[in-house]
């Protein structure tokens, strides 16, 4: 069943077309990967879907409802949660309080939120760090904290922006495992990722962007061999 449908979305910054008539569908239960070289418009697309940027053209339909033009908090309340490429923990707050913020914005008392936050920290394996300031976590741990935080908003669709960026191979493996665990909780995932190994391990389908346009879509092995995709990443000599 279709969960998210992006139709003809166009977003420009001055003269630069960051998203050029992009179409894509995400079905319930899927993990869809988005790839593309830097500047191809991946994060812009996430910003448009989650209400941080307003597209000039097109529509974004989530569960049958056009969500284009809604504020980020409204989009989140409808069931779309996102992480950021650049990590954004609430650094002055403890790890547990970080997750509590997500729970509190969805009606819940402070005491309950404190308890429930621990469940999500357990899920991502950070329960032993719950009381330290979030600013004191390592990059890998911060990524997990972000996942715990967005999971606490109880999303139906999760947008992950480079979840393995800046993480060592060991951390990568456990993140892949975490993504699988999230999927088991009936969360559909759209993920921007640069590590092809990670994508091969998790994605059902890949979408490749280049200079704001969708250039390929399909099974991971097919998309990664697609000559246009290879050219976008490595140049003409390799295509």
């Amino acid at each position: 069943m279709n969960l998210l449908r992006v139709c003809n979305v166009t977003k420009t910054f001055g003269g630069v077309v960051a998203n050029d008539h992009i179409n894509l569908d995400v079905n319930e239960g899927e993990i869809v990967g988005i790839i593309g070289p830097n500047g191809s418009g991946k994060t812009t697309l996430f910003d448009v879907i989650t209400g941080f940027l307003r597209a000039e053209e097109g529509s974004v339909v989530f569960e049958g409802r056009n969500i284009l033009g809604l504020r980020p908090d409204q989009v989140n309340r409808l069931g779309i949660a996102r992480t950021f490429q650049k990590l954004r923990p609430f650094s002055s707050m403890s790890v547990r309080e970080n997750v509590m913020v997500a729970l509190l914005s969805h009606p819940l008392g402070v005491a309950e939120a404190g308890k429930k936050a621990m469940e999500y920290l357990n899920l991502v394996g950070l329960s032993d760090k719950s009381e330290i300031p979030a600013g004191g976590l390592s990059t890998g741990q911060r990524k997990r904290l972000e996942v715990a935080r967005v999971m606490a908003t109880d999303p139906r669709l999760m947008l992950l922006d480079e979840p393995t960026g800046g993480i060592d191979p060991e951390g990568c493996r456990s993140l892949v495992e975490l993504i699988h665990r999230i999927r088991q909780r009936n969360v559909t995932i759209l993920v921007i990722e640069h590590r092809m190994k990670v994508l091969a391990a998790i994605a059902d389908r890949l979408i490749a962007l280049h200079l704001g346009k969708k250039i390929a879509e399909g099974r991971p092995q097919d998309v990664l061999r697609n000559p246009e995709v290879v050219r976008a990443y490595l140049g003409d000599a390799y295509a």
Partner: protein
Amino acid sequence: MSDDTSGLSPSTDRMIHSRWRVTLENVRSNPGGALLVLVLVVLAAFPLLVADPTLQHVFIQVFFYATLAQAWNILGGYAGQLSLGQSIFVGAGAYTSTLLFVKAGVTPWIGLVGGMLVAMSLAILIGYPLFRLKGHYFAIATWLLTEIAQVLVINWAWASGAVGINLPFRGDSPVLFQFNSKAPFYYISFAIAVLAFVTTYLVEHTKPGYIFRAIKDDPEAASSLGVYILRYQLLAFMIYSAFSAAIGTFYAQYVLVIVPDTLLKIDMAVLAMLAAVLGGKGTLWGPLIGALILAPLAEYARILLGGQGRAISLAVYGFLIVSLAIYEPLGLMSLFRRIRRRI
């Protein structure tokens, strides 16, 4: 406890003893709470013990600035919105109650509530467009609004414009918020300051407190988690404006004269912010500690040095700001915490 006087059963006796122990343990485990009780008792007894009106006046100044600093702290220290527009709301409180009193004979007690309502409405009107501005731009805009407010009131003939309003003194009348001695003013300002303190405590321990801090740390991340930022910014702004207005009405009744030239100036807002920052912004005790240091400093500089005192106290503020920024950017509270950890 001797047997002949008490006549209590041994079990009651034990209970009393254990309750004592519990209290002492509480003091040890919760020094903040014990300190609070101690401070409250000392401050409540102060006017009974010290009759010197000058000293009472200095403490009234402390409560005045403690309230302003605490209000600033909720908005700036917890929610991270740096406002310099506090005088607007102090003025809204002072002018609302004074105009109601002078023009319609309404008691300033009702005027106080009216002033708070006016200030909160203003906060929504101002906050709605202004919270689109981030960080320093918001601060600059609130500063400019203070200047605009002053110009508007100076040209407001019905409210006596630049001349200001003298409140008629009707003699010692609690109903009319007018007193012959300083002690009642001491207790009223004390009560308002305590209320601001309690409000901060409540904010810190309830949902708004968590959301405020999240917004301060990263507003975009907060909104991505479902927080409607503007709603909470406005909430913080309203709490801030309400306390500023309440203490503004108090100011008008205490001084019995309000003049736009002194009231609607950025100075008051700067001193309040400085008190909060000096003590420790985003902490419960910080604003009170800052006010305890800065308000007497300003007052004694004025008393000792007259007109030149203002320049001296400005120099001292400058010195405090610079040394704070270098040695203790998080305020005196973080210094105290470090010392306590050493002990």
